[in-house]
């Protein structure tokens, strides 16, 4: 933790809430004063949220802050590898793996003071699994029914055994919303009501939204009814108010932080991390993430223009991977803050199987390429979002590393919607990309990266029957050990076949004023402010 990560506050919370202890990591010499109650924290975000509906939202800008407003039945663990109690205190799976009984926490109230009931829970889960509702339905597709057994008891019935269901109940889209209040909201359809409700969302989370000027500022105040207790036995959150200011420009955000106009800010450019670490007034926090950065390859035999696609040859893809020195890319783009990918999943993803994949070896790359019809080299184009500094650094570095193979990399800068359109249509050779998990389970990333029937394996056209079958089996697997073995095999095949160019994992770079403490960002990206406070 040489990067200045301080995790004590969250660890304290974890203990207080009764779950397993998370290792307490402290920098030597950092005094641990008792948290202070009250005050307003101002946090600078690079972009505003769009739609604060747990089920119908589409983007990380919503997902990563929604947990400050809403709670889920279970919560992801700090390390991202398991779940802890949330609005449910206990759960047990039936012997056949198709029935999950949950005990609800007593006395939980929504931010408007009304009691949370089993009816709210059933309604929220039913809404989350309604196939007409939004992009996240797949995460809860195994649920067939939610049965109310009593005021504090519900049972989730499953189509088939599903070991990812616990993680799904700890994911934003299964957040519990107040049924009566939602239904009383203006609007003819669920979508219209959702629009109106999301203007001033009411959940059971630590804060509630009181004012929102889109793209400018979001003002939150503490939920006086919040159920979670601090280690001192008094309720959380510590802060009275929390402002999210939207400042798109990286340099301006950091200047505001330095001038003391912000207490903290996200997405610090890697090139500025050392400068912040050296600033006596600031504290750099690098949170372990599920973020992986890679290049997607189109592996179809022919490209959009009808020409033969060298990337359809697995040996070409392996050669390109061997030719890239990931450590050098990491040094250049992330200033050494990243680590090489060891699977298509991040190390923070459950059941990740770490492999030494494609250690830089130019001789091997050349030998592999020599076995293909493309031994004389070829030209390949990689799309990137115009102006993205990290992508530029990655691609220009890779350009030089591929040159000895006779592979000429052309860089094509596009605006995001144009790039997305061509990507979805399969009209590309390569593109830059990164991914973060939304759920503490490997099934989501696998369904997008490796399982063809979902989105054609990242629109690459890579269709591996063995992986498809393994994934389908794993989705209904009852035995955790077997499921782990299935995921291990999927990852090994994926590495061997290399439908992507593996690059690096990187942490979430967040910076705070020295007195602004207690913020937590979990590997899924969620920003937790319930334990945040301003020290005197």
């Amino acid at each position, binding site marked *: 933790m040489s990067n200045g990560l301080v995790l004590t506050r969250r660890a304290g919370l974890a203990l207080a809430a009764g779950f397993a202890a998370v290792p307490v990591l402290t920098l030597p010499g950092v005094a641990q004063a008792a948290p202070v109650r009250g005050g307003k924290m101002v946090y600078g975000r690079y972009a505003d949220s*769009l*739609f604060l509906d747990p089920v119908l939202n*589409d*983007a990380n800008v919503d997902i990563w802050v929604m947990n400050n407003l809403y709670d889920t039945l279970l919560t992801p663990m700090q390390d991202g590898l398991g779940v802890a109690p949330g609005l449910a205190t206990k759960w047990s799976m039936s012997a056949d793996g198709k029935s999950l009984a949950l005990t609800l926490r007593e006395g939980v109230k929504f931010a408007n003071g009304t009691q949370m009931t089993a009816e709210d829970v059933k309604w929220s889960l039913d809404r989350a699994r309604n196939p*007409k509702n*939004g*992009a996240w339905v797949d995460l809860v597709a195994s649920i067939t029914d939610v049965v109310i057994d009593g005021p504090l008891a519900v049972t989730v019935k499953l189509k088939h055994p599903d070991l990812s269901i616990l993680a799904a109940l700890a994911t934003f889209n299964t957040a519990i919303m107040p049924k009566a209040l939602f239904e009383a909201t203006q609007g003819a359809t669920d*979508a219209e009501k959702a*629009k109106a409700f*999301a*203007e001033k969302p009411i959940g059971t989370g630590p804060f509630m939204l009181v004012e929102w*000027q*889109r*793209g*400018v*500022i979001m003002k939150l105040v503490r939920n006086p009814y919040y159920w979670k207790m601090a280690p001192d036995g008094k309720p959380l959150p510590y802060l009275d108010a929390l402002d999210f*200011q*939207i*400042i*798109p*420009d990286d*340099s*301006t955000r950091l*200047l*505001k932080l*330095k*001038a003391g*106009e912000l207490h903290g800010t996200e997405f610090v450019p890697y090139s500025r991390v050392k400068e912040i670490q050296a600033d006596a007034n600031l504290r750099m926090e690098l949170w372990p993430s599920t973020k992986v950065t890679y290049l997607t390859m189109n592996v179809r035999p022919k490209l959009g223009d009808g020409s033969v696609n060298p990337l359809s040859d697995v040996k070409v893809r392996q050669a390109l991977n061997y030719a890239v020195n990931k450590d050098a890319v990491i040094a250049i783009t992330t200033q050494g803050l990243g680590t090489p990918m060891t699977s298509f999943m991040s190390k923070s993803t459950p059941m990740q199987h770490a492999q030494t994949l494609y250690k830089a070896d130019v001789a091997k790359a050349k030998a592999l390429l020599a076995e293909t019809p493309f031994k004389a080299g070829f030209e390949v184009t990689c799309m990137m979002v115009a102006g993205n500094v990290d992508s530029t650094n990655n691609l220009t570095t890779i350009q030089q590393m591929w040159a000895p193979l006779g592979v000429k990399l052309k860089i094509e800068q596009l*605006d*995001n*919607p*144009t*790039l*997305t*359109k*061509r*990507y*979805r249509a399969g009209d590309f050779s390569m593109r830059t*990309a990164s991914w973060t998990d939304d759920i503490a389970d490997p099934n989501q990333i696998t369904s*997008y990266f490796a399982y063809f029937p*979902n*989105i054609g394996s*990242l*629109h690459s056209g890579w269709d591996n029957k063995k992986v498809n079958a393994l994934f389908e089996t794993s989705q209904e697997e009852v035995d955790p050990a077997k499921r782990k073995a299935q995921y291990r095999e999927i990852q090994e095949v994926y590495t061997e076949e290399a439908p992507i160019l593996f690059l690096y994992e990187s942490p979430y770079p967040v910076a705070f004023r020295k007195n602004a403490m207690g913020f937590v960002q979990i590997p899924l990206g969620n920003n937790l402010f319930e334990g945040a406070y301003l020290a005197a």
Partner: protein
Amino acid sequence: MNRGTWLLGRLAQIVPSFLFIGVAVFVLARLLPGDPVSAMLGDHATDATLARLTAQLGLDRSIPVQLMQFLGGVLRGELGDSIAYRIPVARLIAERLPATVLLTLLSVAIALALAVPLAFVAALNANRWPDLLIRFVFQIGLSTPIFYVGLLLLTVLAAWAHLFPVGGYGDGWRAHLWHLFLPALTLALSFAAVLMRSLRGAVLDVINAEFVDFARSKGLRARVLLGRHVLRSAMIATVTLVGLHVGSLLGGAVITESVFAVPGVGRLMVESIFARDYPVIQALTLVLAVFVSLALLATDIVQMWLDPRVGR
């Protein structure tokens, strides 16, 4: 033709230009590759999800039908909802427009305050050291990119010297003006350079004109001469320039608003284009067109007042 008729004629020209702008921006927005739904759902959504949202937003209807819906809405005064933010476009623009209007007006004021006196100093000392110095300094202002000047001012005057806040907009009018001073100055610097050069040239022309020689021969004092004859004639070109420049100041506001975190429509426009948020792009273009038209109309009126030949 009297001046009233002339003004009415100018106003009448505005209506068809709005219609043209409305149709043009509708078509142009849809000619951009990509669409709002895939921009919003990103890389990973399934085709089914994409199709469902497209239908929900009515974007699966034919382009002519959508165009008629848009124009009909504009006539009824309904601008629709933002696709990305899911709130009425009118509200979004109403929240953001004041900051941009204030920023533009403030930058025009600063530019004039800088350019007018210095142009006179430069013209009256033509090709001597004060003139050369002024022109040199303004040339730097003109040739430095706006975002760089902005960051420089922010770093030195705000973050380092703490004379101004580092971006933002503040609460209340006085706070707004204080927050907007640096971005307005940033915008004003390059504009003032253009104004100064034009006004300096105009003043030089006027000083050497025959009617000024005549006035001078009547024995008018220099100050009266400058105020009554030279300033008035030379300002005609400046006023035209200000009017024509409102459009480009709005363009500059796009960058300035991002650097200074000013919640204006410039930033909103860029965000909306990146999100392919058609309703916002369309409505905002119309609103900005109104803004520019009004500025041009005001220019015409001021010109009419300054120059008796206009409108005759």
